[in-house]
């Protein structure tokens, strides 16, 4: 081996410099992150309602979020208007790949439950055989500084400084969590055994603020439901609007024909459609996937004015507006 290396010594020395440079360019992490166009997920793969044929017209849109980028990737994407390159946030730097996945699952689960509740509530106005019973059950941990190892993504917070969620509405209970010194009581379920753990947390200046999601427990629902799509790698809350519309349309059996509908926007318990990340990339994804109608939160509309999209855009602020639009168009 050495004999061979000696034979090509000069050329190897010359080549080693560009080689090391290329390796650095292809592997060294930068402080940049990118949001890139992704694809569509059919909602009928995500939600099953007993005895109901789910509408296959609706699709949620997912985008890819990568961080950190390598120098090569940042050069490659610099001139691409479909990509959104940003400096990584402190929260992204503090989030491992596992935590990122868990965050996606938590927010998706909350979003699916909220979508189910809102859709059943709206559909029950049209058909009184549809029922849902639920109650507020505290908070889910979505993000916590990684130094707080006792707290896990997805933990259920049932008490804050000794105050139970039972005595509060969500808006008031979450305010308790944003104090600088707090003691969380966590409910954990392992093999159907419930245990409670207390975690004390003191905010320091280097910490990014924690993020929580509301935990609503669905006690009963008619028709009953399952979420078979929960374990997929695609996560996040941005499918809330479309999930709600799919459940609503399926429960009432609205005929949408063979149109391909997609959309993005979170669903809140008061019916508000919330803002999402990567709106530009979602609009491009919908272009690539040939959708016919696309729902977006009203507040995002000004951000997509420069994009030439070939489909109909429906701008909504609340789920009631979206449902009204569907009923006027297809009923």
């Amino acid at each position, binding site marked *: *081996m050495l*004999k*061979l290396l000696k034979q090509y010594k000069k050329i190897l020395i010359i080549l080693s410099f560009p*080689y090391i440079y*290329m*390796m650095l360019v*292809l*592997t060294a992490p930068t402080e940049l992150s*990118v949001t*890139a*166009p*992704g*694809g569509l997920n059919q909602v009928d793969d995500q939600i099953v309602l007993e005895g109901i044929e789910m509408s296959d017209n609706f699709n949620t849109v997912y985008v*890819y979020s*990568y961080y950190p*980028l*390598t120098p*090569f*990737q940042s050069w*490659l*994407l610099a001139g691409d208007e479909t*990509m959104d390159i940003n400096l990584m946030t402190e929260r992204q730097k503090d989030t491992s790949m596992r935590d990122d996945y868990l965050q996606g699952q938590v927010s998706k689960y909350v979003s699916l439950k909220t979508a189910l509740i809102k859709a059943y509530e709206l559909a029950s106005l049209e058909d009184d055989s549809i029922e849902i019973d639920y109650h507020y059950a505290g908070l889910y941990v979505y993000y916590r500084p990684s130094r707080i190892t006792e707290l896990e993504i997805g933990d259920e917070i049932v008490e804050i400084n000794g105050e139970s969620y039972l005595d509060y509405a969500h808006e008031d209970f979450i305010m308790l969590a944003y104090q600088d010194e707090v003691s969380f009581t966590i409910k954990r379920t392992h093999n159907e055994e419930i245990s409670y753990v207390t975690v004390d947390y003191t905010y320091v200046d280097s910490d990014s603020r924690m993020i929580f999601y509301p935990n609503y427990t669905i006690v009963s629902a008619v028709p009953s439901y399952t979420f078979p799509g929960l374990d997929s790698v695609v996560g996040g809350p941005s499918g809330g609007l479309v999930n709600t519309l799919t459940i609503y349309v399926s429960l009432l059996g609205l005929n949408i024909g063979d149109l391909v509908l997609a959309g993005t926007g979170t669903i809140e318990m008061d019916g508000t459609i919330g803002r999402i990340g990567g709106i530009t990339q979602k609009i491009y994804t919908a272009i*690539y996937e040939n959708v016919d109608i696309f729902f977006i939160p009203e507040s995002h509309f000004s951000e997509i004015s420069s994009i030439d999209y070939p489909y109909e855009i429906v701008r909504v602020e609340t789920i009631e507006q979206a449902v009204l639009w569907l009923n006027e168009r297809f009923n």
Partner: protein
Amino acid sequence: MNVLIDKVFVFFRRFKKLIKLIDKKTSVKSVVKSVAGALLLSILIIAIPVLVIINMFIYAKLTFLLSVFLVIIVMGWSFLYYFFYYKLLKNYHEELSEINTKIPQLVESSIVATFFFFIGIIVLATIF
């Protein structure tokens, strides 16, 4: 047809003979050193195109195409590996230069490449 089958048998008999001949003239030590050297060199060479392709996976639309390229590169790696393996082996045993190592090199590379080809197809079929 029979002529073709005969040719294949003759080819493989020749391949077996050459392998036996090479085995006789080499030692375990030099084979181990050649394997290690060939692995090192071939991985170093293949690392750059593989990393370029992995970096390009941010283009979601190209995912399938890039995966196919990866399979092709991995198949190509087997040819590169055996090229260096026999090059190093000849380097350790100069008497091997009189033997035609091209046939064992190509046959073994092709077998490994075919193996990677099937593995690649199974992986691609599972993912896409």
